[in-house]
């Protein structure tokens, strides 16, 4: 296995091999420590500078977000924690992204700097509160000295530091003095009853910029003097290579500066975006598909289905499930399949870099900074400390920017080296992905097949549950394998099923890995995108077999999981489950735990005159531990429902002879305003540690809608999207 930095010089020659080798790196080989030169700002007079909070003499409080904010509100969430403990006023707080520095800014649950798995609040809750509390203690200590009064008599409220004698100052006034105070090792944190923002309200800090079209927000908007813009023609089939190309027409386009071959395609470098797009369309490329995936998705699904009929890697093995099935009074059979899904973040992928031969600076929505940083250094063949990453706001990600192989970084580093090798002057360059590039570019939610066999006794009690799943593993063979696979098992694929808290008799679960060149990746809620659908529609079927109400049956089947039972009851109660829905309306329910958070959703649907489904209303109940920003929790559940709903209604990426069919929003038709149901979100009051909310709203919506359709029609859809069944 490659340790990323072992042979940096080998990477100095761009080659296809380097591309692959970098992709096969392990977390263990990453550089995790660095000594950053103290920034010029740190010398500035009167500034208070700690890793997570800066206080400036002009009275602004800057919170440094170690996490990428791609819409989920994390940056404002972290600012909430600091502002509360520091007692800063909302309008004096700003948020900036922290530099890439794994020593200071690692995700404490990953060991590297990175955002994902809805962990931002869980791993930062204590850290950012402590940073705020330490800053406040230092401010108070400085004021005590300056005013000659005991620290215990000083109060801070809404950004104002004051003493009974009438003395008062702003945080900014005291910043310079506080900077000289010792950082308390264990600052005293507030008790929950003292919180002023946590659990209450702290409006997002990024909203103003995002409603006026502010410049320098997203990578797509990145500008620099002399900036070049590049597009890359990548192989139409995954794993294809350039055989030969003719760039003579492309070079004639005014504004096109150069055309360069890269290990993975052909780059058109231009003075601005349009010539780069137009020039690329005029390239004539012959591709070598000898090592490429050339199958159609139908054939791949058929292969997955066959795989589920065979034993696989044991994920869970309670006992001899086949014998119990054999002895059962009845066996329920169900076979599911789910398609590839594209993330379709609103901002297509993009990345900018300046490489001068010795140092490199990058600007993009970096989601796993430590991997991106190591990969840039490796490919460019320069030391880790010569690379600087500026994280920018991302126009969505849904998992897409968290790649194990950092392929956008590899590509732009290869381009920078190719530009250098071709004798071009060093210049900042931005690679823009068009929507077609982004959508046809792979890294999909894996397609999967699921084979379920459930044994029932004569009284319809569940005796055995046999679950075989087949899909391409997201982590196997990547930088995440060492961290995320144990004993050859990929638990990401089966999360939400192997760890179910339903009492399902004897449960066995096998997984089989599909091999394909199509790259796959986490997609908002990862394994739960398919397991929640399977488990929650199966439970509904079993309720029907038992002749029981779906909510009552679930409550009977849930074991030792009071928080799950609680959100289910709450959602059912708020949705008026006890009362029949109105005429022509049907309801379905689903409840699922993911990333430590519990979400139950009741979907109410109707059918249009043409027989298609309209989701009218969704009532959700959420338990994500201590709610930090309730309005953001509501927003994330609304968005998570919409994101999941669009996918199950009509989204799929299909291949014909290895070529992607859906390449833009005309064929991968996203959820739109008229599809969006009314959403009502209820948050459970809790003192448990906070858990994630970016993803957990997504898993239950699919099965809740499928169960509502079954309530109307008697059958559960087992092949997604619903459009295949003529329901959309």
């Amino acid at each position: 296995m490659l340790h990323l930095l072992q042979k940096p010089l080998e990477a100095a020659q761009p080659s296809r091999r380097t591309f692959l080798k970098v992709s096969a790196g392990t977390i263990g080989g990453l550089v995790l420590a660095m000594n950053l030169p103290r920034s010029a700002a740190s010398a500035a007079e009167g500034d208070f500078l700690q890793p997570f909070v800066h206080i400036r003499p002009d009275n602004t409080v800057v919170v440094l977000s170690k996490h990428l904010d791609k819409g989920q509100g994390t940056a404002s969430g972290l600012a909430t924690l600091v502002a509360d403990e520091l007692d800063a006023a909302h309008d004096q707080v700003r948020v900036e992204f922290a530099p890439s520095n794994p020593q200071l800014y690692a995700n404490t649950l990953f060991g590297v700097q990175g955002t994902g798995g809805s962990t931002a609040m869980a791993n930062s809750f204590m850290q950012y509160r402590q940073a705020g509390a330490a800053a406040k203690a230092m401010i108070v200590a400085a004021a005590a000295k300056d005013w000659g009064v005991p620290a215990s008599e000083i109060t801070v409220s809404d950004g104002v530091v004051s003493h009974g004698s009438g003395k008062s100052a702003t945080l900014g006034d005291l910043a310079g003095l506080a900077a000289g105070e010792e950082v308390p090792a264990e600052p005293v944190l507030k008790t929950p009853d003292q919180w002023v923002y946590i659990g209450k309200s702290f409006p997002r800090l990024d909203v103003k910029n995002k409603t006026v079209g502010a410049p320098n927000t997203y990578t797509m908007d990145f500008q620099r003097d002399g900036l070049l813009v590049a597009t890359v023609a990548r192989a139409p089939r995954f794993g294809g290579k350039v055989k030969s190309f003719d760039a003579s027409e492309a070079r004639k386009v005014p504004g096109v500066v150069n055309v360069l071959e890269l290990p993975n395609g052909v780059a058109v470098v231009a003075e601005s975006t349009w010539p780069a797009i137009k020039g690329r369309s005029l390239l004539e490329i012959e591709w070598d598909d000898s090592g490429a995936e050339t199958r159609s998705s139908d054939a791949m699904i058929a292969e997955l289905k066959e795989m589920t009929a065979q034993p696989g890697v044991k994920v869970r093995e309670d006992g001899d499930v086949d014998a119990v099935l054999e002895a059962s009074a009845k066996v329920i059979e169900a076979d599911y399949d789910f398609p590839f899904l594209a993330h379709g973040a609103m901002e297509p992928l993009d990345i900018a870099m300046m490489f001068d031969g010795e140092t490199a600076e990058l600007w993009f929505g970096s989601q796993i900074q430590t991997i991106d940083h190591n990969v840039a250094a490796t490919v460019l063949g320069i030391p880790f400390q010569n690379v600087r990453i500026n994280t920018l706001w991302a126009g969505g990600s849904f998992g897409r920017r968290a790649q194990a192989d950092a392929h956008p970084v590899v590509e732009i580093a290869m381009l920078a080296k190719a530009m250098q090798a071709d004798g071009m002057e060093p210049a900042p360059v931005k690679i823009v992905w068009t929507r077609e590039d982004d959508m046809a570019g792979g890294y999909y939610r894996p397609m999967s097949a699921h084979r379920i066999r459930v044994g029932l006794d004569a009284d319809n009690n569940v005796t055995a549950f046999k679950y075989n799943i087949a899909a391409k593993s997201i982590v196997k063979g990547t930088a995440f394998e060492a961290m995320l696979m144990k004993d050859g098992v990929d638990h990401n694929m089966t999360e939400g099923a192997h760890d179910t808290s339903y009492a399902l008799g004897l449960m066995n679960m096998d997984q089989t890995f599909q091999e394909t060149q199509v790259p796959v990746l986490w997609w908002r809620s990862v394994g739960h995108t398919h397991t929640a659908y399977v488990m929650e529609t199966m439970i509904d079927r079993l309720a029907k077999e038992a002749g029981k109400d779906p909510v009552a049956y679930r409550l009977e089947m849930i074991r030792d999981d009071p928080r799950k039972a609680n959100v289910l009851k709450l959602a059912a109660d708020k949705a008026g489950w006890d009362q029949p829905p109105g005429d022509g309306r049907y309801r379905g329910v689903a409840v699922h735990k993911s990333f430590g958070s519990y979400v139950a959703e009741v979907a109410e649907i109707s059918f249009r005159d043409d027989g298609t489904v309209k989701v009218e209303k969704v009532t959700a109940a959420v338990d994500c531990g201590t709610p930090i920003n309730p309005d953001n929790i509501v927003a994330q559940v609304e968005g998570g429902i919409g994101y999941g709903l669009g996918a199950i209604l009509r989204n799929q990426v299909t291949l014909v002879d290895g070529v992607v069919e859906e390449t833009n929003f005309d064929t991968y038709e996203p959820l739109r305003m008229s599809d969006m149901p009314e959403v009502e979100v209820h948050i459970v009051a809790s003192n448990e540690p906070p858990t994630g909310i970016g993803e957990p709203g997504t898993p239950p919506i699919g099965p809740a809608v499928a169960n509502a359709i079954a309530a109307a029609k008697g059958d559960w859809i087992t092949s997604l999207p619903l459009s295949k069944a003529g329901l959309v």
Partner: protein
Amino acid sequence: MSVTLKINGETRTLDADPDSPLLWALRDELKLTGTKFGCGIASCGACTVHLDGMPIRSCQTMVGDVEDAEITTIEGIDGKAAEAVQAAWQELDVPQCGYCQSGQIMAATALLSETRKPTDEDIDFAMDGNVCRCATYARIRKAIHLASDKMEG
């Protein structure tokens, strides 16, 4: 080739191919990057600007076709409807990633300029061309109603 456009009340002369999309002239030549690139095929609305007050998709509008028109981008909108829309958006914390929101605001402003009290059906009709992958639709709908109320008051 040099082209003259009227943008946000100013006359700007720029070097652009008349057959190139207005979107890229705005973003790359004039550095008005508030107007976003989302799909390039008039399917997402991220690139919405106003052409004589009407919402249009700048990715499918060629520079040479709009030389005589008044073009307004997110950087240049003002007036009662625009102010009400932006205030409502901020009050309800509508944006998540925010990338679609310039286009949403341009579309909502155009709607409210025409229809002071839009119904939910009016909103569906006017806004269905504007995709939000973060699915902030529920809040966009609320914010349009709120902006409408603000314009009354």
